[in-house]
């Protein structure tokens, strides 16, 4: 289940090849991406994200307190 969510979030971020770095911070995933423009905000929100903040290729996905777990699940997929 959790892994599936991580997989979907990863896909919405443009896939493993688009990830430079993912860092969890309590309520959010700070994602440094190759290309921030491909992020599927709608999909992320459908997956339960409270919000998505973009600053160029740094995209923060607000996922709530499960951020740590999700980040480590995503790390496992990379």
């Amino acid at each position, binding site marked *: 289940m959790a892994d599936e969510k991580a997989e979907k979030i990863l896909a919405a971020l443009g896939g493993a090849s688009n990830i430079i770095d993912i*860092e969890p*911070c*309590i*309520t*959010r995933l*700070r994602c440094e991406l190759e290309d921030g423009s491909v992020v599927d905000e709608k999909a992320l929100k459908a997956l339960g994200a*409270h*919000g998505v*903040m973009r600053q160029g290729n740094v995209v*923060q996905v*607000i996922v*709530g*307190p499960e951020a*740590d777990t999700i980040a480590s699940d995503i790390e496992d997929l990379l």
Partner: protein
Amino acid sequence: MTLSVGSPVAGRVVSLTEVPDPVFAQAMVGPGIAVEPDRVAADVVSPVDGTIVTLHPHAFVVATEGGAGVLVHLGIDTVKRKGEGFTLHVVKGETVRAGQAIVSWDPAEVEAAGFSPICPVVALDAPADSLGDLSEGATVAVGDQLFSWQR
């Protein structure tokens, strides 16, 4: 039941909207309040009785037996400090009492390093109207009530 949420730090209570971070200012992870901490080295304490479910040097979440999660974040973007200047006194999964020391830090040092040391205290995933007695504008000591949470 009503949960009393105490201040993890001493300082001046301000609205969450004054926090220079949209996630907190827009209450994306829940409603709450923020404390502009006194600029002296101090112990940060647990706002409620519960279990430490998430623990970083610069932030933690305590969940009560009833499942209420209270997030305490020490400063903004302080994840970039990578733990420098924060000394933890508990481990993840530990049972804590309200008022128990969780981490030591120095808000003045955080500020000198270029970060806002403001401390958002958030009732995770709570409906906004479930919080009452918000102590906005007050000066609080460690452990003084910040707000009540109707659950």
